[in-house]
């Protein structure tokens, strides 16, 4: 049954990856079309100058939006490829940035800014990418729960003594974070996080300043 579920995930990952690929093609068409317009404009003399300036501006905007769309597509693509293998060798910096990128929109909706502080060098670990992404997602969800509009959360990656860690921290702590702590939803979220950490053979702790630290094994033994 687990195999069927995993297969479903792999299947969705593949499909999503192929879909994003298709999307990129579409963006490429738009980009080329607008580029072509620029070219035609440059050797067409009888366009009124005001219109020319305006059109150039618009084409620029379009290019910018294509870039933005491409960027988003790329994020989904990377995310989708996480399910290519149930266990994979990855750079921890990369996998955290994958999630942070994906969650930026969610954060923006709550007016929260997300900051990624990667480690200086790549940290290669063997892990279950999907589960690790989920674990990070639970951390963010947990912290978002406390944050008022306009807060800031940072994800710091470190590798002290070959113990890879990700630390999620609220940069500007709300005045009374303790008020909600024993909320049932929250402990539910925390137990979900613990559950998934067990699956990763990782360890999650939270301190009184709401700083969540996930310590990962370099290689999972389970």
């Amino acid at each position: 049954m687990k195999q069927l579920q995993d297969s479903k995930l792999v299947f969705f990952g593949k499909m999503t990856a192929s879909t994003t690929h298709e999307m990129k093609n579409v963006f490429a068409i738009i980009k080329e079309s607008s580029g072509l317009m620029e070219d035609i404009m440059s050797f067409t003399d009888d366009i009124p100058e005001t219109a020319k300036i305006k059109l150039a501006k618009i084409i620029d905007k379009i290019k910018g939006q294509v870039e933005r769309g491409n960027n988003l597509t790329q994020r989904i693509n990377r995310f989708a490829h996480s399910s290519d293998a149930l266990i994979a060798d990855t750079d921890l910096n990369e996998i955290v940035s994958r999630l942070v990128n994906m969650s930026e929109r969610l954060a923006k909706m709550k007016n929260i800014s997300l900051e990624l502080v990667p480690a200086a060098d790549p940290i290669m670990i063997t892990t279950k990418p999907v589960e690790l992404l989920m674990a990070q997602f639970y951390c963010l969800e947990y912290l978002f729960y406390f944050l008022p509009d306009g807060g800031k959360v940072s994800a710091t990656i470190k590798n002290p003594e070959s113990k890879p860690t990700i630390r999620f921290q609220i940069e500007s702590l709300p005045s009374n974070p303790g008020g909600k702590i024993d909320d049932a939803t929250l402990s539910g979220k925390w137990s979900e996080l613990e559950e998934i950490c067990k699956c990763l053979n990782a360890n999650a702790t939270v301190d009184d300043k709401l700083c969540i630290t996930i310590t990962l094994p370099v290689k999972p033994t389970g």
Partner: protein
Amino acid sequence: MPSIFKNIINNFLEFHSDEASPDRYKKLRRNITILMIIITTVPLLVMASVNYHQYNTRLTDEIVNPLRAISNKSKHSIELFLNERLSTIRFIESLFSFEQLSDKKALNSIFRVLSLEFKGFIDISLIDKTGKLRNYAGHYVLPTGDYSQEKWFHEVSIRGTYVSEVFTGYRGYPHISMAVQHMTKNEEIWILRATIDIKQFESIIRAMGLEAESDAFLVRNNILQTHSKYYGKVLEKCPIPIPERGFGTTITEITDPDGRNIFMSSIYFEESDYVLVIIKPRSVLFKSWYTLKTDLFAITIISIIMIIIIAFKLSEALVKNIQEADEKREMAFREVQHSQKLSSIGRLAAGVAHEINNPMAIINEKAGLMNDLIDFSPDFENKEKFLNLTGSIIQSVERCKKITHRLLGFAKRLEVVFENLDLNNVITEGLGFLESEAKHRNIEIRTNFSENLPRISADKGQLHQVFLNIITNGMVALDDGGTITIATWDQDKDTVGVSITDNGCGMSKETMKHIFEPFFTTKKDYGTGLGLPITYGIIQKIGGTIKVESEENKGTTFYIYLKKNFDNPNI
């Protein structure tokens, strides 16, 4: 009381299914087994032991009581015999004076009368106060002796009478002696002493009428006073320890030096240290008891062994069932959890996919604005070209919108949701994913859908997975320019049928046998070989069946039959 019992049982069978301990099933099994064994064997053992004891008691009573009776009776007989002799001597002592008895003739005639009237007298002698033998009548000729240093002489001086233990003396065979002291007012002291043959004791013992295996004898100070059948001759040391003096008859069960289990009854005489011992071997008495005991024991042991075996088997089956049920439940639970977790990932991806709509909308409006600007401006060279390009951008946006829509439909379906679905729609939707590849490889996908296909209850994501797996499989088998035909029909009142046919290379009978086996693949270097087994697994899970028909170089057809109402959404 019942509530206490209930508590104990509950505690004993207490079982935390959420407890992670791996040997909780072992523990449970052990407890159930123990409880079952206790509940069944305790009454059995109690019954058996009650039976055993009751029977034992009755048997013992039957043996012991007669033994006690005969022992008492015989002791009385012997005591009576001794007392009779003693009083006879005392009678003579008080009837005659020292002078009369000193007369040899007189004493001889007294002895004659004695021997005639009373059995067992061997001789009679008169001793003066200094311990010197003064007269004698009997079967032996005695030297004049001095008894002043003898133990019995002192004893008789103190107590007045004395009955000796058995001794051989110079008469050469075992006998006992008894003495009586005469004491008159004028302090004239002398002693009359008689010896008695112990044959008399033996004849009393014989009169008891004991069985051949039994034995009876007299003991004094651990010395046999009469012959014993099994334990030695007279005056030998008795090999059996004699119990201390008690009230009446003491009956003990002991093992004798020969290893026989015996019942020993012992009774002390009131006036002296004589003990009458009667021995009855157990084996004889208890013959029937032994067979009964063996039977009882065998039945009990066999029953217990059977109970234990049954308890073990039963508890094993029981716990196995519990364990299986638990595992199933846990699996279903994990499944749900897993699916929920996946759906959170799906939502996250969906969120970003949604976000793509924002730049698309901007591009759309910008392109539209350009279109407006150009449209509204006076004609210029390449105006047509510009309008074509903006149109192409707007079209691309439209296309991208469709793709995101498809992706969103997908990302949402990471969790299993049973819906009422139009199978034709599901297949068409899935084909959207293959459109570009099919176009690229010039593969034609034909559909031959039944128009009034009944809706089925299923999870869309799983159906997509099934169809896309089979169709992509078919596309691999196809050369560029091939055809895949998908047909749907209403099979019967419970089932709908789908067939997926390709006109590709087909497969051999041998390959066909294995295609649903995990890790079997003909696609060299790519494909994990899990596609079709997974497909097979999913179809089985949703209550459907899959069949394959293939002919080499002609093509392959997969037939899938799905339940219209699959009422077990326990996925």
